[in-house]
Structures are given as C-alpha cells and as structure tokens.
C-alpha cells in the first residue's frame, strides 16, 4: 500500500500541470507549468499597451474594436528553444472579461454590431458559422493564436476586445453611463499538440479604452447649440469640417439609407493603424492629401478656437484624447522616472514642426529606446523596424529570438508597471516585478541575472 501511495504521489508531482501548482525551481513561480517531460514558459503581451476604441459607431468613428495579443513560448533547457511550430504546440487565448453574451448585451457594443457592416462593407461582426462575435480580422474573443514561425512568436491581431462594464472600473463614461474596466485580462494557454496536455499558462493585460474625443466634443456641440450627444457632436463636427475642407462629413451617407453616417475618418485620411496603404474614399468625395494623424493633431494644436476656448495645453495634454476618461494608460516604469508622453513622443507642436505627422506610425517617427538608453542593441543588426516602430518588433538576446517586450513588458507598461495587474506575469515568472532578468526563467542551468543584451552571453 505504501508503495502504491508513494508511486501515486510521484506520479502526481510529475504529471502535466499548467496552472496553480508552484514550480519547484528556485524562483517559486506559480502558474507556469512543468508539464511532464516538457518544461515550458509562456510570456504574453499586448502589442501597444493600449488600444483606443470608439464608444458608439452610429455617426463617425476613429477606431474600431481591435486588439492584438502576442506570446512567446520557450522550452526551458540549458539551451532554451523558442517554440513557434503549430505542429508542436497550440497556443490559445481568451479575453476573460469579454464574453459573447456580455458584449452582445452591451448597448455601446451593439452599435458596433449594427453599424460595422456599413463602416466596413462585407464585414460580418457575427460569424454566421458559429454565431460568435468576430473582429475585422476574424479574430474572436477566444481562440487559437497564429504562429509566426519565422519570427518566433504567436499572435492574434484584431481581437474585438472592448472595455467591460464595471462599476469599480477606472474608466469613466463621458456620456454618463456606468464606469468600465479598460484593463482586461488576456489568458494564454499552451498545449502540447501530441497529447493535448496543458504545458503553460499566463495572464497579461489587454487594454481597451474609449478615446477621449467625446469628453470635449459633446460639450462643444452643446456650447454651439447642438444636442449634447454623439449625434449633436457629429452634426457640429460636420460643420467644422466643412469650414476647413468644404466637405460636411455629417452629410455623407455611405450606405444610401437616407441617414448620414456612419463614416470613418480613415476612409478619406490615411491611417496606417487601419492596415491600409491608401484610404478607400467615399464615392463622390475626394481622398485627402493629409494623413489622419496630421489633420487631427495639427488642427487641435494650432486652432485658436481649441487653444483659447478649450485647452491651451492640448499640445502636451495627451490624456485629453489618448485615451482620456480617467485611463492613465501610460503606466510603466518611465512614469516613476518623471517622464511624460512628450519626452518620448515629442509634443504636438514639435512633431508638426518636424513634419512627423505625415508619416505616422513609422519607424522614422516613433520613439527609440536608444534615444536615451545605451546597450539596447539597437543598430546592432537585429532591429526589426516596421509599422509601430522600433521597440514593438525588435528582438534581442542570443540569436535575436526574444522580443524586447517579452522581457520588458508591453509599450506604455514597461516593467515594473505602476498597474499591479501588469506585474503579475513577471512576478509569477521570477518572483519579483521588473524586467525579466532572472536567467533561470528560461535557462535550467543558470541562476541569478546576466546581461541579456549581450549577444555573446
């Protein structure tokens, strides 16, 4: 009997577990599995650290629900391997606070369900095959991540994550509705494709917040005799737009139903964040020569109406719009250093003067770590520039396989973050908040910390 119990205990100890059992390595991690024969780590991040989304979609929209989750999976060993073969493992994600039922019942998200096919012709926000909510890329609120095998990570772009109704949430509703939680949870699980066993699991922050436009524009509409609601705002916005460009956007009726709207600004103004290289335009209306970033930021920073009647500091007051509503999404380590948004991104006046806004979201105009930090390896041959800039897609460590964000956290939420939730993952991995600097997180033969930026290490 004793033998049976002993064998059973040993079996229990070595059996595949991904959740809840503390690792017996020196770091005392929990939530990361020692899945039988395979000792795997998964580290997930959001791509930008914040995604803004509009509250309603009946009139005009800037940004649709669109969130991107990334994960790197590492086989622990003396020589760890990055796992990105979909034949080997399966990586699943789930946005914990967003369910199909909760979003279908959300009055603001219902506007998306109704209007998104008009905004994006051909798009079906509910997958007819399974009745589930899907985003512009087909991504759902839960599912399998796509392997980026050549790059060494897993990704799901276009998850239609949306701020969750939550009376305790930090995000206020400028239309007076209940507060919401903009810091959702992205749960990521790694399974062995051969035996279906859960190998590792982690949670990361998936941020989604309402942009701050309505906070001012509702008041602006009211101050000019229009209803203090999105419809009044749209109507007045149309007049303002007409004053500048000759085009009253509140008269554009893309679906021909006799009711103006819904329209999206990026239909006429290039916005690389929408994944387009040319704005599609509306029939009968010209495409603008100005990017969305240029017109929006330049107008607000230079308009005497804005400066004198609304905010003389709008050029440095990023939270007025990004995202606003009480969500201080810039919450990472740099906050503790007294750095403001403008210290990395420049203030609007500076960016306008330098012509940056004609090239938004580009490697040329986004901040680089090397602007302040040495020994980042930038320029060392493994910088992967592309849309969204240097930090986001850069990799380092030996063989340049580890995303900077995997160890340092997502943009705007660099470890250690001032939002406790952001730090849960790094604490689970190494026992303390901060950049992943414990070699033993991945290396079975190492303890302590090393120099992860030294490619010869």
């Amino acid at each position, binding site marked *: 009997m004793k033998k049976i119990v002993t064998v059973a205990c040993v079996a229990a100890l070595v059996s595949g577990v991904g959740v809840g059992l503390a690792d017996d390595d020196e770091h005392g991690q929990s939530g990361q599995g020692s899945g039988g024969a395979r000792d795997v780590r998964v580290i997930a991040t959001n791509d930008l650290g914040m995604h803004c989304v509009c509250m309603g979609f009946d009139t005009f929209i800037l940004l649709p629900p669109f969130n991107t989750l990334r994960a790197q999976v590492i086989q622990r060993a003396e020589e760890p391997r990055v796992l990105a073969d979909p034949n080997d493992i399966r990586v699943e994600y789930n946005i914990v606070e967003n369910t199909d039922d909760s979003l279908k019942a959300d009055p603001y998200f219902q506007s998306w369900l109704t209007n998104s096919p008009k905004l994006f012709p051909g798009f079906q926000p509910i997958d007819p095959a399974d009745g589930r909510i899907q985003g512009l890329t087909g991504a759902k609120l839960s599912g399998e991540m796509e392997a980026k095998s050549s790059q060494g990570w897993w990704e799901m772009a276009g998850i239609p994550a949306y701020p969750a109704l939550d009376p305790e949430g*930090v995000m*206020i509703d*400028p*239309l*007076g509705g209940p*507060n919401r939680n903009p810091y959702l949870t992205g749960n990521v699980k790694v399974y062995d494709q051969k035996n279906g066993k859960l190998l590792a699991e982690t949670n990361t922050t998936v941020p989604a917040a309402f942009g701050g436009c309505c*906070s001012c524009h*509702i*008041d602006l509409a*009211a*101050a*000019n*005799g229009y209803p*203090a*609601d999105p419809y009044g705002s749209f109507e007045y916005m149309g007049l303002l737009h007409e004053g500048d460009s000759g085009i009253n956007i509140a008269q554009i009726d893309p679906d021909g139903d006799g009711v103006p709207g819904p329209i999206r600004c990026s239909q006429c103004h290039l916005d690389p964040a929408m994944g387009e290289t040319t704005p599609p335009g509306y029939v009968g209306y010209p495409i603008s020569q100005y990017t969305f970033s240029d017109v929006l930021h330049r107008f607000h920073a*230079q308009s*005497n*109406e804005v*400066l*004198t*009647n609304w*905010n*003389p*500091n709008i*050029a*440095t*007051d990023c*939270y007025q719009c990004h995202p606003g*509503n*009480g969500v*201080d999404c810039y919450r990472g380590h740099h906050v503790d250093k*007294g750095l*403001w948004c*403008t*210290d990395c991104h420049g*203030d609007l*006046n*500076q960016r306008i*003067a330098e012509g940056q806004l004609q090239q938004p979201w580009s490697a040329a105009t986004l901040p680089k770590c090397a602007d302040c930090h040495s020994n980042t390896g930038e320029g060392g041959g493994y910088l992967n520039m592309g849309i969204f800039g240097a930090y986001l897609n850069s990799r380092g460590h030996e063989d340049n396989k580890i995303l900077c964000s995997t160890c340092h956290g997502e943009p705007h939420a660099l470890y250690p973050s001032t939002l406790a939730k952001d730090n849960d993952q790094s604490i689970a991995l190494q026992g303390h908040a901060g950049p992943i600097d414990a070699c033993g997180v991945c290396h079975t033969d190492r303890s302590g910390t090393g120099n992860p930026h030294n490619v010869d290490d």
Partner: protein
Amino acid sequence: MKGILFSIVLLYIIALPLTPSAWAADKAEEAGVIDTRSTLHLFMEWEERKTFPDSMPFAYYHAYALMALQGKVQPEVAEKITAFILSCQTRNGGFAVRPALTQNPNILFTYYAIKTLDLLDKINLVDKNKIIRYTLSLQQDDGGIKGSSTNGDAPNLATTCYGIEVLKQLGAIDSLEKEKTVAFINRYRENGAGFGVSVGHGSTPEASFLGLNALETLDALTAQTREELSTYFLGTRYAGLIKDKKYKTLPKLKTMSFTLDGLHALGNLDKADRAAITAFVESLYIPENGGFGPMPGLGTTPASTFYGVVCLVHLGLLPEPAAATREQGNIKSKRINGLVSRQQPGKTHNK
C-alpha cells in the same frame, strides 16, 4: 495710546502665521483634506524636468501656484521661467508657446507671457511697446482681436478678451477702438444670461468670465449686465445652489475655477454655496501626489492642479498670488469677498 496700539499690532504680528505656506498649511488642515504642502512639492518635482516649464501656459501656472502656495518663486526658478518666456518672443513682439516655434506667435501665449512676467516682477525686461503694437495689429475692423496673424484666422470672444488683458497689463487699454471692441464682445452675449464661445449660442462659465472681465476693463459693464451675469453664474451647477438635478456630463475643475473667477469679479462669491464648492474641489484632490484631477475619477494633471490652486485661492484657503508678492511684509492682505482674509485669523467659513 500710540504705544498701546503698536504693542497690539506687534502682538498680532507675532500671533499670525507669518509665511503664506504656513498659513496655507493651517487652512489646509482646517479643511481636513487638502495638503497644500504636498501640492507645492508636486510643483517642485515638475521643476526638475529638463524641458521645464514645457510651455507658456505651464510657465504661468507654475509661477501662480508657487506664489499662492509659498508666497514666492525661488530666484533660480524665476530665472528659468523668465529665460523660457523671453526665448519665446518673436520678432513682431508676440510670444509663441515654446522656443523654436517662434514663427507661430499667438495672443493666448502672449497673454500668459505678460501675466507671468508681471507675477515675477520681470515685466520690464520686455519691450512693452513692441508687444502693444503686436496686439493692436491683431485688431480687426469689427473690433475683435485675432489669435494670430495667420491668414484666415478670425477673432473670437476669447482671443479678443486675451488681447484686452495684454493691453491692460501693459497700460495701453486706451489704444483700443473701445466702442467697436465692446460691440464685438457683446455679440457673444446670450440674451439675459452669460457669454458663449460662439455667437448666438449658449453661455459657458469660461466665456462668461472672459466677457465680463473684458467689459469691466473697458468700463462697459452695465449694472444690468452685471446683475444678469450674477444670476447666470449663480444658476450654474458650479455655484453649488442647484441640488438634486442630474447632469449628463461630469463637472470640470477648470469650469469651477472660471465660475469662481466670475463670482469673485462680481462680488457675489458669498451668495454661492461655499461648502458645496469646497467639497467639489476637495473631491478632485489626489492625496497620493498632492495634485488635482480635471474631473471626478480622473488623475492629476498639471493644468488641473493649477485650477485647483485657483479654486483654493478663491475659497480663501490660499492667499492671492498678486497680493502675496506686492504686499509682502504687510500684515494686510487682499480680502477675497466674504471669505477668510489674513486680517481675521481663526475665522473661517470652510466648515
């Protein structure tokens, strides 16, 4: 007799908290929520920024707040602010928002430049006549003053009022075509109420204070207008007199500060519900860092912390900056209508 009076005055001086910061701290303790020492510390942290003061409005906010919180601006900080301001002046006399953007002077930033230099007692460092000429160059045939000389730029109430303030500060208000300017300003008046940001539309506290202040400067504020503006300000949510009404949007600290500016200018602050106003201002105080947020539920911003300080000044919880500098050493201080003044230590209205 004279000796007795002198002794009483001397004892009174000794009994008074002599420094504005100590006075402010006492008041803050009485208020029970706001720690102005913490607010002062926050401003001092911002001074450490390489790009301090970052912009022209921030320069003013900083100088004003330091005066209110501690009665002075340290010489080295004053030097930094002054150097920043002077580097923002353009060839035509106007001021830009920051250095390196001197191709874009604006009346708003010129206003903040002059106000700040005046607070720091450095106004004599600038060529006043040049600034006056710049401001007058922006006046239009309809009496309005544009924000900038950019083609297509049109004057509005706010740009006109800031222009008037600049001229007033520089002692050149008589250079204006007053009648036309008054007519321009009055176009923004809502019948029987306040002023709006655009002609023919609803009143806002911000526009109403700007309009009222400008008319007063131009000696054009009639008794009827004064009364109607009083009624308007006291009828807004910010006077604290409206109970049990639900609003769609959240109240804003900036709007509260302009409402208090307006009530103060009209001598009607004592008719407002001071307790309700104080409670609102206190609710936007962020104890973690001593700052203020712009609306309920939001975190600290530099601008809203400035507006919080302005509200505390109007509520008598901080001394008025102009008084603090110009009457330094004098036991009398400017009385804010109906509220605490340093002449009456121990008497407060904040409970």
